């Protein structure tokens, strides 16, 4: 970079009066010349050309490139890469095995949980069944007891009612008799006339009617 500016400066100093265009025209030529002298100076006349473009070195470089690249290819394909692949494959397999084991264990756990839950649900259902059954039995028993009691109570009530009715009838009959007797006594007391009990009863019945 510094070189090219130097060359341009040289070119302009060589042709100061000619102006812009000629100076530019001479610049590449000057640049080439400068490059030539510089490279020969640096390389001490070994090859003379720009090294990467020096065709004299090509056969040697191609030869050794083929040799060493071939060697590298062989070493890689036969030795290094298979080993690397084995390492990676080994890890891959181990991981796969571990993962499948883990998933199997997880499945086992899940099935255990499921069966536990099922047992729990079964037990709960059974308990509920027993409870319902017991409740039904108890209800039925209570119901039976109550109906028995109710019928017996009803029978007693009915008996009591018939007895009450009988007593009432008896009482009414007694009341009529007492009334007749009392009426006969009252008549005898008032009038002095003896009235038979039957007449008195007849008269009362007539009053009533």
């Amino acid at each position, binding site marked *: 970079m510094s070189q090219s500016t130097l060359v341009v400066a040289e070119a302009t100093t060589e042709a100061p009066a000619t102006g812009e265009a000629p100076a530019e025209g001479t610049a590449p030529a000057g640049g080439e010349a400068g490059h030539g002298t510089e490279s020969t100076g640096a*390389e001490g006349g070994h090859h003379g050309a720009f090294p*990467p473009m020096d065709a004299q070195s090509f056969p040697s470089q191609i030869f050794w490139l083929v040799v060493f690249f071939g060697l590298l290819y062989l070493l*890689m394909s036969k030795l290094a890469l298979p080993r690397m692949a084995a390492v990676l494959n080994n890890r891959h397999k181990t991981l796969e095995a571990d993962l499948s084991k883990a998933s199997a264990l997880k499945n086992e756990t899940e099935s255990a949980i499921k069966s536990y839950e099922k047992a729990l649900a079964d037990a709960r259902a059974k308990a509920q069944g027993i409870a319902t059954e017991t409740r039904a039995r108890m209800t039925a028993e209570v119901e039976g007891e109550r109906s028995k009691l109710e019928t017996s109570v009803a029978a007693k009530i009915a008996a009591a009612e018939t007895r009450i009715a009988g007593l009432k009838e008896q009482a009414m009959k007694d009341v009529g008799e007492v009334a007749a007797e009392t009426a006969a006594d009252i008549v005898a007391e008032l009038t002095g006339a003896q009235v038979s009990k039957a007449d008195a009863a007849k008269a009362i019945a007539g009053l009533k009617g």
Partner: protein
Amino acid sequence: MAQGIDPIHQFQLHDLAGPWNIAGYEISFTNSALFMGIAVGVVTLTLLAAASRAALVPGRLQSVGELWYEFIHNMVRNVLGAEGKPFFPLVFSLFSFVLVANLLGMFPYFFTVTSHVVVTGTLAVFVVGLVVVVGIVKHGLGWFKLFVPHGVPMVILPFISLIEVISFLSRPVSLGLRLFGNMLAGHIVLKVFAGFVVLLGSMGLGGIVGAIAPLGMAVALTALEFLVAFLQAFVFAILTCVYLNDALHTHH
């Protein structure tokens, strides 16, 4: 000192062993070859060390190795699908080689293998060549229908096909040059800014104060270059996958 500041010097190759020749070509063992070897060694040893303990819960190194492996593995699977499995080692090797070569280049005095166009170009040509071979093996000559898209009017079909062919042929060029250009330019710019620091620093107190800005720039660029080193390796790998996808699944 002048050599130390020259931003091109770091790309210079020099023979470490040799010169050797095969069929008239010079194949001396250079510093570039040395660093290719180091990259291969680093990749291999890192991965082997990462895989050695094989712990179920990975340690730090093993995590890095696994991340590395799975990164490319997922990339190949996502782009290529199940059919891409045979190409996984190749994509992994490409990614790792480029990544480690790029990262090694970040060390001072280390050579950056991927800063030479012939290296990246060779890899790119290899990838695209492989795409052609795989495509023809997999689909026969019907694979060339890739260049003849469906539902295009006959009038402009030749032009479209021409454009498709050109776009296909430009793949190795763009694939190779992208990596090469990124690494080369990054290292040159780093060296230039670092060179400013040295130059200004040798100019006395005022120079030292003036060198603060390029020093900060060099630090920031170093961080950027680490990002680029990874990013370019990733881009190279994913483009390889995308191109291979064309060879495997031709549904145009």
